């Protein structure tokens, strides 16, 4: 694409999509509210599970129920942001398989960015709300700025991982199930205390399935800030963003268009 990619233009596009999404949320208020509340209840049930668990066992490898509150603050808030602003993060395989990518290819915006932002999940709004509630319960005022920064880094990892998993569709055709499993795997691993994983499992969670950097490491940093691990987290998110952009570009070269001549209005 010969068009110069300007950050300002893309942010403007994101804002436009957010506006459309808000307008439609207001149009279908009941649905929007139901889905938001459902997600809050869903997350609450998980926290109840952990309260019961730690009520019985007090701590596991140094992790307490307070640490789980922080973990849920980071996990739900960052997954929530990813879902609200980059709703297609886990739908890329579908978009590719159904030939819907054509629409984005014809426009003068970065294709990956445009695909990601063109959907917004209302369930995710519940995650954002729940993350903030958990944050209010867990954090002192000075932890909030760090919490927001770490959540943005987690969010980037989540979106990049979703993009990588979805890009499998470029190379294997029908990859919806595999890509869903990979994405769900990242979610699942990031909702358990990092301290229970040892050896190979821990190495995997700090590299190819970076769930440790999505939740476990941010919790450690919020408890005891450590510059080395902060920088490692930052590098991890930058590396994942870069790889996902490269892989998506490589995939695009292999993409064979469908003849899905739809016009979106």
């Amino acid at each position, binding site marked *: 694409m010969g068009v110069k990619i300007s950050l300002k233009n893309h942010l403007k596009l994101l804002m436009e999509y957010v506006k459309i999404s808000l307008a439609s949320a207001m149009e279908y208020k*009941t*649905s929007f509210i*139901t*889905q938001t509340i*459902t*997600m809050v*209840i*869903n997350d609450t*049930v*998980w926290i*109840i*599970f952990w309260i*019961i*668990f730690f*009520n*019985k*066992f007090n701590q*596991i*490898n140094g992790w307490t129920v307070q640490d789980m509150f922080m973990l849920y603050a980071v996990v739900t808030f960052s997954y929530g942001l990813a879902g609200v602003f980059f709703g297609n993060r886990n739908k890329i395989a579908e978009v590719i398989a159904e030939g819907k990518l054509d629409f984005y290819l014809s426009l003068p915006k970065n294709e990956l960015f445009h695909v990601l932002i063109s959907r917004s999940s209302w369930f995710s709004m519940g995650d954002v709300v729940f993350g903030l509630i958990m944050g209010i319960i867990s954090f002192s005022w000075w932890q909030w700025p760090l919490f927001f920064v770490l959540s943005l880094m987690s969010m980037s990892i989540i979106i990049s991982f979703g993009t990588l998993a979805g890009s499998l569709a470029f190379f294997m055709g029908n990859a919806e*199930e*595999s890509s869903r*499993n990979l994405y*769900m*795997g990242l979610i*699942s*691993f990031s909702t*358990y*205390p990092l*301290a*229970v*994983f*040892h050896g190979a*499992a821990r190495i995997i969670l700090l590299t190819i399935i970076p769930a440790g950097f999505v939740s476990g490491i941010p919790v450690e940093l919020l408890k005891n800030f450590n510059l080395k691990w902060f920088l490692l987290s930052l590098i991890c998110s930058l590396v994942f963003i870069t790889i996902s952009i490269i892989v998506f570009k490589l995939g695009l070269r292999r993409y064979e268009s469908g003849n899905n001549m739809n016009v979106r209005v």
Partner: protein
Amino acid sequence: MTLTKYIEISKISVYNSLAYLLDFFSGSLFIGLIIFVFIQLWNVVYGPSAGLIEGYTINMMVWYLVLTEAIVTSPGKILEEIGDEIKTGNIAQNLNKPYNYVGFKYASSMARTLLRFLITFGVGSLVAYVFLGGLEVKFLTLPIILVSVFLALTLHFLIMVLLGILVFWLEDASATYFIYQKIVFVLGGMLMPLEIFPTWLEKISAALPFSYIAYHPAKLFVNFQWSNVSEVLLKQLMWIMIMIVIVTIVYQICIRKISLNGG
């Protein structure tokens, strides 16, 4: 005569599902991953001494989860299917057919469910066996456990049908399913046996129907006691009867309220 048509429906459903075997396997891989995570979690909780927690060894604890996960996840999206048919009005296509709608759904989905149960249980067992070890189960008790699992799947099906029909009033099928699933996860004792709960919550959960889907059959599986058998099976049957009555009533009310336009 009447039963044969439902058996035929089941057969067709199994043939259809065979086409999606790979999809089933892929779905059960996720269950394998959860089993793996819980093995790590319980390993830390039990520590190197690996004693008993509330009467469960670590192997019992993990194999308990292998069975509950397989029961709870194998029916798939029945609730959403029925919810969608009711909301879109497609249910009308079934009303003038010579079968009972719920019976038809039961025959077609149970066949699929049992197939998926076998695969999920197989994958879960493999993960548990490789990363932890086996479980001692007396051969003689297996038929009873299988009956209990079958009743659990039937009860699970009926509750989802009921909620599916209620989508007529509740509006959002996936939201309803989400919350029901989480109730079974915790109060049904899917994630951990009810003995881990504080006593008051354990008593409430054990009395609710959800625990007859996960906790009670899984406990029979890992810690078989002859003294529990009749109570568990009878209570499962009792809840199934109660659900059949409620589903029949709610279904009739819903059908009367559906208004159809054209064909």
